[in-house]
């Protein structure tokens, strides 16, 4: 199967596109660096015992009075910025991927059901989808998070913050999948293999998930990639606003927020480097998503 993939049009288009290849490489590096951060990072920034407050605000290694040990400098508590970034990226990715997975699960299911069953069910589901689509997703995520924050007692909330975020971002992102999948399902519904399955007597659920689903996954893949970028940005934004991940388990957004306080006093690296890392990651994801969309678009071939 790998052989078939390497031979395919899609891979050909990938090889020819330097941006896509570049993005994939960057992304791979980021992935490895973040997932394996406990082993790869120079220091563990959250091991309080290893922190020395005398180390605080070391400028990055490449600056004239920089510390050799800290490639990207340290923050106000002496934590190495590079390590913080690696751990932070890990958290950001975790939230982003799970949020998208949640959104896909919910959105694809709704889309399949609405597209296949039609009628009243479809109208209701699509109405909900459309209404939610007309609100900016960041607002929805914000409000869901706000409600959770108000509902849960403080300690429980802090423990579950990660999952609250995943839920909030996922909830804000499912409609786009539902819309697309519903459209594709409607198209597939009229095709003969579906009718054949019905005639044999296969149940609706099985038809939807085993027969139709594989055929509608194409556009879902493209949206998923772009959605991942959006989810990561959403998490970063929420953390930046202070309603996301706390400083004890920071994501890139949290790091940027904390760092902004030191921008005016000259220690720019505490906020800029996490920002660059975030931007690079999302840029790479977007580039790959763009390429994927063009590669899978039958009209452009």
């Amino acid at each position, binding site marked *: 199967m790998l052989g078939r993939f390497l031979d395919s049009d899609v891979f050909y288009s990938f090889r020819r596109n330097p941006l896509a290849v570049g993005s994939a490489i960057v992304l791979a590096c980021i992935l490895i660096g973040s997932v394996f951060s406990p082993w790869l990072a120079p220091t563990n920034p959250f091991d309080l015992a290893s922190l020395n407050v005398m180390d605080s605000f070391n400028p990055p290694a490449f600056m004239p009075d920089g510390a050799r040990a800290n490639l990207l400098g340290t923050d106000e508590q002496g934590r190495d910025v590079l390590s913080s970034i690696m751990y932070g990226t890990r958290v950001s990715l975790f939230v982003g991927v799970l949020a998208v997975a949640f959104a896909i699960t919910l959105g694809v299911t709704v889309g399949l059901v609405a597209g296949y069953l039609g009628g009243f069910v479809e109208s209701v589901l699509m109405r909900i989808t459309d209404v939610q689509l007309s609100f900016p997703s960041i607002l929805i995520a914000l409000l869901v998070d706000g409600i959770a924050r108000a509902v849960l007692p403080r300690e429980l909330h802090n423990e579950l913050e990660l999952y609250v975020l995943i839920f909030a971002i996922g909830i804000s992102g499912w409609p786009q999948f539902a819309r697309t999948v519903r459209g594709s399902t409607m198209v597939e519904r009229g095709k003969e293999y579906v009718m054949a399955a019905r005639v044999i007597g296969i149940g609706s659920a099985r038809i939807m998930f085993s027969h139709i689903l594989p055929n509608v996954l194409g556009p879902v893949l493209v949206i998923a990639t772009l959605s991942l970028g959006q989810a990561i940005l959403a998490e970063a934004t929420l953390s930046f*606003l202070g309603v996301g991940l706390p400083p004890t388990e920071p994501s890139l957004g949290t790091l940027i927020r904390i760092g902004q306080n030191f921008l005016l006093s000259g220690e720019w690296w505490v906020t800029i480097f996490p920002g660059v890392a975030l931007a690079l990651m999302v840029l790479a994801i977007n580039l790959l998503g763009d390429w994927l969309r063009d590669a899978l678009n039958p009209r452009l071939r």
Partner: protein
Amino acid sequence: MFAFIVSRLLQAIPVLLVVGFISFGMFAFVGDPILFMLGQDFTLEQKEALIRQLGLDQPFLVQYGHYLWAALHGNFGMSYRLARPVSTLLLERLPATAELALSAAAFAMIVGMPLGVYTGIKRDALSSRLILMFSLVGVSLPPFLIGILLILIFAVLLGWLPSFGRGEVVNLGIWTTGFLTWSGLKALVLPAISLGLFPLTLNMRLVRAEMLEVLRSDYIKFAKARGISQRAIYFGHALKNTLVPVITIVGLQIGGLIAFAIVTESVFQWPGMGLLLVQSIGTADIPVMSAYLQLIAVLFVVINLLVDLLYYAVDPRLRIGRGGGH
């Protein structure tokens, strides 16, 4: 067309009701206003007096009714955190957010659309490729990061523009404006750019994509076959057809701007509604949150309606009605 407006309004009502219900639900089931308003020590009498005062001893539906009624009159209760009427708070901060959103929208449109047309027409030129690359960066950079970068460059390093606040504002009765003072305008520049960059890149890519699509259509081919000039094709036929779908998206953008203003206001400490919301969420200030929710819902319904009307006005196919041939 009148029937159209009425039907859209009717469709909007269930949405508003649901939103109102959720907002009220937040009030009823979430948080404890007593704790907020009285602090930790209070006597039983104080508590009971407050309960009666807030109407919390009434049955659920009655409370809901009161809530909706009050909301319709613009009364959203008192902020837990600031102990002031929510509606006053929102009104105070509305001008700041509105002016920011408007400036950003203007920026996004005035710069974004022509760029989109240009990159659509000259699709393979080097300049187009560069602009597109830049736009991809614009879409990937989160608004707060753009804000921070702008602050770093223009405020910290160059010192040209302020890094927070709104500058001097002129009080015009119910509205305070920053447009009329030099410092107000200077303070507006960085926030407006950082808020508007994302919609700008979106506009540009959208216009470009539409333009490319339109330029591939049969009627453009036919126009070429009739020898119509390049200029008439691009700026007459193609542009007009491009703008029709673009208008809807741009109209809907205003909504996104209000939402993202929240972030920009945080970065620049801009005293608008967004900053208020963030502070409320952090402190679980329910009245503010629920009022904001309702306000946004109404705003979006209105925006959607206006955009639909605009679409109607621009596309003759919708105006005169279908068919009629023979």
